[in-house]
């Protein structure tokens, strides 16, 4: 059977170059679009012109890590991973219908460009905007830095002749060597370069490009692999995989390696129903994209598009990876299952190397898009929420443009510097930052959008309590479990459930015990605004 390591050939390398070239081209196209309007709104918000495809496929899809880690989970633990990801069935609805309309409306009504802008304007308290901005920058820097390592390793592995096939937590054979550094340099230059020239739109368009690439890859792989594994019946992939492992592969809580905890006990399954749909609501990158959507109709179409996209990606990927376990029961590194299936199943095709290259290049595109997204959010935080607000309120477009570029280069350098000796616990770091961001922002965002009685102090309390709960559980977990960033799972639930709960309780209680917000401010945010047909209004202090 096909367990032996196949050769990568030139396909992946060439496709990687294609992905990079397309991304740079998209960046230059984005630059042209940005120049049509004012710099800040164009560069950081795409002039509020996101269409349905761009919004659907980029606002709620998590980082490249979701796509990369997910297939290896299915291969390792079996059908229970379908329950782990099942809540994606409601992500299109929760992602757009809970906050979307109000965020889009309020950001227009207040002229807000960034999420902290919106908090500031809605509650009339600059401190709230500052805390939101610092929290976003702190957690997102962690997330962004972690992705640089992923990008560098994919480049290293794509080099023709390498014997490693996929991104793994541990750096592949040869460790941190010259190829890794070349990969890091090329990756960083490319992604910082195109983000710098195209800003928000560059990040959105490359994100859209990689999402489409991913979907094409999944469809090709499904057609190539699944018929092979199920030629003796549709039940064969599962039964063959069970025969190669154990009965646990077909049921909950899933197959676990000896000595490891059960993969998905009921408490964890419940937690992931919070993690994806509710956690997704609180992602600052997602919130800002909703603010950038063109109109209400765009949002409605996005819900439908994303519903079909998620179905097209996740259910087939599960079937593909179950078939993978049946066809290749003993792959040494689980992360390699998709690359191995891609190379093996297309080996007899004309141009098969390029088809498998396309499938392997998709995660690289995802990593680039993720870094680009975070870079824009972080830069907008520094430039808009700190520099422009507190240091140089009257800065002109050319000054803001210069500062934005300098900030992106600095954060790019931070990404490179942090990865010269890369951290080990990459995946845990990503989970920590994602959970902390969601716990910090979900309750405050809902209070901002819907609760008239919410106060600035209550919202601040909700933010700090959510972030504090996650930090606390991580510190306790690090001590109890003896491993950094390994969180403490109180009552068997993931930290996000506790973070959201504590944040909600703190937000409501503190709002109720503090003085109600000024009626005039609330009315401006919630009530019909009188206009006389003139363009509404500039803002004045």
């Amino acid at each position, binding site marked *: 059977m096909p367990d032996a390591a196949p050769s990568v050939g030139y396909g992946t390398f060439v496709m990687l170059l294609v992905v990079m070239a397309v991304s740079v081209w998209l960046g230059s196209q984005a630059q042209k679009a940005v120049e049509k309007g004012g710099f800040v709104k164009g560069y950081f918000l795409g002039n509020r012109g996101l269409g349905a495809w761009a919004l659907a496929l980029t606002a709620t899809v998590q980082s490249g890590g979701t796509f990369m880690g997910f297939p290896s989970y299915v291969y390792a633990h079996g*059908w229970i991973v379908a329950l782990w990801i099942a809540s994606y069935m*409601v992500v299109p609805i929760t992602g757009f219908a809970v906050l979307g309309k109000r965020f889009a409306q309020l950001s227009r009504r207040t002229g807000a460009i960034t999420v902290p802008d919106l908090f500031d304007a809605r509650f009339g308290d600059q401190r709230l905007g500052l805390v939101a901005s610092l929290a976003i920058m702190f957690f997102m820097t962690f997330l962004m830095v972690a992705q640089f390592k992923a990008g560098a390793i994919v480049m290293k592995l794509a080099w023709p002749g390498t014997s490693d096939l996929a991104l793994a937590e541990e750096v592949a054979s040869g460790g941190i060597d010259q190829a890794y550094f070349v990969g890091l340099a090329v990756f960083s230059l490319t992604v910082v370069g195109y983000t710098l020239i195209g800003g928000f739109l560059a990040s959105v368009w490359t994100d859209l490009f990689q999402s489409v690439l991913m979907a094409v890859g999944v469809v090709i792989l499904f057609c190539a692999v699944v018929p092979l594994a199920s030629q003796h019946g549709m039940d064969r992939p599962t039964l063959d995989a069970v025969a190669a492992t154990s009965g646990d592969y077909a049921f909950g809580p899933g197959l676990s390696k000896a000595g490891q905890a059960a993969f998905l006990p009921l408490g964890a399954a419940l937690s992931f129903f919070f993690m994806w749909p509710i956690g997704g609501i609180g992602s600052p990158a997602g919130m800002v994209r909703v603010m950038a959507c063109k109109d209400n109709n765009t949002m409605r179409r996005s819900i439908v598009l994303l519903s079909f996209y998620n179905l097209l990606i996740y259910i087939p990927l599960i*079937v593909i990876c179950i078939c993978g376990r049946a066809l290749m029961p003993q792959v040494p590194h689980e992360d390699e299952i998709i690359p191995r299936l891609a190379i093996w199943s297309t080996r007899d095709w004309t141009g098969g190397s390029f088809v498998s290259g396309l499938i392997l290049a998709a995660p690289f595109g995802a990593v680039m898009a993720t870094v680009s997204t975070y870079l824009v959010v972080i830069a907008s935080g520094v430039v808009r929420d700190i520099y422009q607000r507190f240091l140089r309120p009257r800065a002109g477009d050319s000054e803001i443009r210069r500062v934005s570029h300098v900030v992106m280069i600095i954060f790019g350098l931070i990404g490179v510097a942090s990865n010269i000796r890369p951290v080990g616990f990459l995946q845990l770091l990503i989970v920590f930052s994602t959970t902390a961001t969601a716990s910090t922002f979900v309750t405050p965002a809902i209070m901002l959008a819907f609760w008239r009685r919410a106060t600035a102090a209550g919202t601040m309390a909700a933010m700090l309590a959510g972030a504090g709960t996650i930090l606390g559980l991580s510190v306790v977990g690090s001590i109890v479990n003896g491993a950094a960033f390994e969180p403490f799972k109180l009552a068997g639930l993931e930290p996000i459930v506790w973070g959201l709960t504590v944040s909600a309780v703190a937000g409501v209680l503190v709002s109720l015990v503090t003085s109600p917000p000024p009626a005039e401010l609330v009315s401006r945010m919630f009530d019909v605004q009188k206009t006389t047909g003139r363009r509404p209004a500039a803002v004045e202090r």
Partner: protein
Amino acid sequence: MSHPQEDPVVTAARREACLALGMWIVAMVYTLGYCYLHGYGRSVESLTFVLWFPDWVFWGIVVPWGICILLSIVFAFRIMGDESLGEEIDADPAESASGGEVRDA
């Protein structure tokens, strides 16, 4: 407490948010409940299949996923209103800070 002056967009958005969260809760209760009752701790001998899927995955995850897509279409095109999101104001950050007052013309 009702607010007679409340913008209809706000009222509609609140209603839609409640519906979306309601859908999330129903999906969670059904899927977790069904999968826990039929997908945990069974023997392989009792397993049946629908297409490629073990019975509990098909009825507990694939079918509700399909229903969610149908409901999403209904939600997007029948329930969700198409109100205007309002016109954009041009805000300079120094001015939009602290309240971002909208001056009525």
